[in-house]
């Protein structure tokens, strides 16, 4: 199993960019780069909820949590820690 960062990056690249990730960095803003629109955010949230078994609350739907690979990884890790889970790489 790949690490969470790789999983999330793979989802974004495959689902939104059809595998053509170009030079998207982990801190690139999804909104500023035009990678994810409002429906895309819903898809990202659905993926996170299903993959990691977490519930994204309305007030957590913010760019701070969801607007880059780094932001999503940090958010998911924080949510899993709240549940007492630890993400294991490898």
């Amino acid at each position, binding site marked *: 199993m790949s690490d969470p960062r790789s999983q999330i990056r793979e989802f974004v690249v495959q689902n939104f960019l059809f595998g053509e990730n170009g030079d998207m960095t982990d801190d690139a803003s999804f*909104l500023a780069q035009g990678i994810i*629109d409002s*429906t895309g955010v*819903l*898809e990202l949230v*659905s993926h996170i909820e299903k993959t990691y078994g977490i519930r994204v609350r309305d007030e957590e739907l913010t*760019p701070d949590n969801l607007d880059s690979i780094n932001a999503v990884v940090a958010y998911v890790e924080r949510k899993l820690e709240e549940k007492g889970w630890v993400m294991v790489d490898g």
Partner: protein
Amino acid sequence: MVLAFFSVGLNTPGSGTVKAPGNHSLDLDPGNECSRIAHWLRRVLATTLRRRGVVVGVSGGVDSAVTATLATQALGKERVLVLLMPERHSSPETLDLSRLVAERLGVRVVAEDITGVLEALGFYRRYEAAVHQVIPEFGSGWSSKLVTSGVAAGRPYPVFSVIARAPNGLEVRQRLPVEVYLEIVAATNFKQRTRKMFEYYHADRLNYAVAGTPNRLEYDQGFFVKNGDGAADLKPIAHLYKTQVYQLAEYLDVPEEIRKRPPTSDTYSMSQGQDEFFFGLPFEQMDLCLYGKNEGLEARVVAEAARLTPEQVQAVWADIDRKRSGTRYLHMAPLLLHTL
């Protein structure tokens, strides 16, 4: 920037009189504007479209009422066909107000109840099944609508929810997962596409053009269904802000019941304001924000006029950009690999 605000004298159904920001104005000369549109309508029908009149789908709202009235004044009542296309979820008021417009104009009217077509398409079944996924109790006798969080609430990402009302009046609200949201929107779009199919049927048999009825806010922000209400041969009021459409409505003596009616989508079985689903703010404020953005005004100037904070105006402007970007494909013709 001159900060002397002045009224444009609009009495709109929302927050009353609207002020334009700075030394700018949303005010227009209704007589001149009607003449300009009338001249344009006659010219494009005669020389570009080569059609003998127009079909207008009338919904009971101010945009379609103004469009039908402008067309009638420009072309004569014998060259305008008004279509009424209610379905099971339409409010009774919609049909009454639509008939009122047509009767006042003296134009031909055809009513096409699209309920049977929607049933054959499976719309009602598909819609109910989609809502049932998030509200298991949803079923016969319930009504519902789609709503979104307001951008003025500071949320850059929309939260789409369904609100359903039980026969006993109890209301339930559930946030929608993406699959259910898309299913509800896709099913509901049958309504706009079915209506457009009837508009083109009548336009074809009469050798008429189809007039679309979006205002500037809707056109700019992509608040329409591709190949549904977005489809038309001409759009006579797409350059006018909603508040300007109300000015024309008053000048054209559109029935007061229609001018006083808050804008609704008339798409869901529960009454749904446009600001609940798409714009996030009442149209008076959206108009001012869009106008200010288009005119390059400062956020603080727009904020004062729109009774928002500068931060809220900036958030609305960011949302305008996002919607422009997200709905750009709705305006596009099919893409080709290269120009032919």
